[in-house]
């Protein structure tokens, strides 16, 4: 289980996260949503341990992050974090990189040898997997980065905009299936940040909406519908909770052009 306890974070003197508390249970897919620049990626980086919150703490499986070296190492063995723009070794093949990442997480060699080709095949990278990453397209780089996170078999996956970055429809579908399968079979927890409601509506167990650094809602789709008073899709609910003024802004824009 992941617990975020009263987290506040600043960039310089600009507050980015304001007293955020939430939790994600084992086997749960939690989507962090909100407009651009409102703190989703920052919150994910705080949970991942890449940022140290100015106030507040993060607890994963009963252990506080960065409390003791032993606890921190235990957490790191359980968690994989994929930023929105991951670094990849351009002079190495995708297959080499996946094997190296798997070994870092102490995945047994036999399982790795079985898993890597299946992952490459899933993301349509069988041939490309043997070429240097420099030769990959943007979407293929996104796929190999996602495969890198999956190959770790970590029970906690923290993914920043996993569906963005040129991922094609088959890649999106494959990723959704993987998340669901990991949740069902391995009780994995997935926290992902995304600004697009349609991409997570069918897989997220709960949706946390962050606006202006504050957590304005964190519930299931049904719960959010009750909170917003709307009964439509996640996009409509999200619109009413976050971007209430956006329709009028659009009307205003087109009205001004007449």
């Amino acid at each position, binding site marked *: 289980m992941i617990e975020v306890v009263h987290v506040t974070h*600043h960039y*310089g*003197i600009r507050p980015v996260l304001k007293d955020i508390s939430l939790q994600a249970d084992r086997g749960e897919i939690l989507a962090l949503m909100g407009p651009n620049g409102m703190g989703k990626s920052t919150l994910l980086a705080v949970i*991942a*341990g*890449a*940022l*140290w919150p*100015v106030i507040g703490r993060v607890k994963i499986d009963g252990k506080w992050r*960065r*409390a*003791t*070296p032993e606890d*921190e*190492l235990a957490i*790191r*063995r359980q*968690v994989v*974090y*994929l*930023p929105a723009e*991951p*670094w*990849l*070794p351009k002079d*190495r*093949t995708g*297959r*080499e*990189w996946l*094997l*190296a*990442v798997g*070994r*870092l*997480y*102490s995945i047994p*060699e036999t399982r790795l*040898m079985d898993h890597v080709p299946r992952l490459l095949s899933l993301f349509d990278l069988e041939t490309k997997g*043997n070429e240097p990453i420099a030769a990959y397209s943007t979407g293929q780089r996104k796929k190999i980065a996602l495969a*890198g996170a999956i190959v770790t078999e970590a029970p906690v996956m923290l993914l920043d905009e996993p569906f963005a970055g040129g991922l094609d429809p088959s890649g999106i579908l494959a990723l959704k299936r993987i998340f669901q399968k990991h949740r069902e079979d391995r009780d994995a927890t997935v926290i992902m940040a995304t600004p697009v409601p349609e991409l997570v509506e069918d897989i997220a167990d709960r949706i946390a909406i962050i606006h202006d650094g504050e957590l304005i809602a964190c519930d299931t789709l049904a719960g959010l519908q009750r909170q917003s008073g709307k009964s439509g899709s996640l996009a409509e609910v999200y619109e009413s909770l976050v971007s209430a003024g956006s329709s009028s802004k659009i009307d205003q824009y087109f009205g001004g052009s007449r």
Partner: protein
Amino acid sequence: MIKRIFISYPKNWPFLNLKWILICLSIYFVFDLIALGLSWFFQVPIPPDFRRVLQQPQGWMLKIFLVYMGLARVFRPHPEGKPKYRNWLKTTPWHPGMPLPLGPITLNFYDLVLLAVTGFMFTKLGMHAELAILLFGIAYTIAVMLKLLSTGPARIDYLLSFGLLLMVWVLPDVRLAALIVVAMYPIEHWAIRHSLKSFPWEPQDEKHVVPLGWTFSRLGPEPVKIRVPVFDAFIVALLFGGSVYVTLSKSVPDVRQGVEGCLVFAGFFAALIRFGVYCGGNSNPLGIRARIATGRLIIPGFDQILVAPMLIAALLFAGLVLGSQRSFQPAEAGALAAVVVLVLFGMGPSLRRFRLTGAYNISKLNGKASRHNVSSSTANG
């Protein structure tokens, strides 16, 4: 004749690159030939002063040759640092205790012959015969120390370093210095045999290493490998302090002042480097402006890394103030240097602990900062 020598020279003397020996001897005897030629041409005996002028380059030739032999004696037959030889050796029935195919790393009878001959040549030049043992021994010891760093047992290097330091301290007594070098050999012999027991040492082969990127290197389950145990910090501090003491004891006052100045500068620089290593890729969670604005002037989880550099700066500053009032004794300078090195390497938090528990934000790094082993056989397929 030359061909016969090449064929018949002892095969278990692999360090002897016969070509080099012949070249060195040729250069050595060229000077004697010049002297003989001039004597014959002018039909007069060579003046002693001119003979001494000719003997100088001969002496240097011998010294360079012995240093080369001392180094080559370890580097040439050692499987570490020769991937092809090491990999081939792995496939053979060779095991520790058997002779190495390229010859022994430990010294043998032929080395005694070499030292006896070169020692004799030194006496002909009016120098100590023991100089041959000293130069060969120093080079051999340094080569062994370098190899032990990668093959282990690395801590024997400390013992050998103290030996070298003692040897420098007794100089210019060449006989005593040579005796110390000889006394160190049993330790080197044991260390080499011990290190061969852990063959093939599994070195990190650069081409088989895949960079992982900052997320995996900084947040992955493998902690930073750089560790300086307190014992090592203490020994290194003692060694450094001892070196400073010996250097200053052997220097004239003018040079001593220059050395002290360099050491103070190096101390400040080392403190900065330590701070840089801890900060590498780790940024302050709150800048100065933000600290003032939020009233959180001290963030212990981050500011702890400032303590050691500040303590070093304070020690050096105190040393500078004291040094301006009266001249420093070598023992005092050595003690100060030892304390500075102890703080530099031994004072907490360790880099590993700070990386795992410190209050910092990770800055995105070049992925080459992180590498992880992958064997070539599996990487391609």
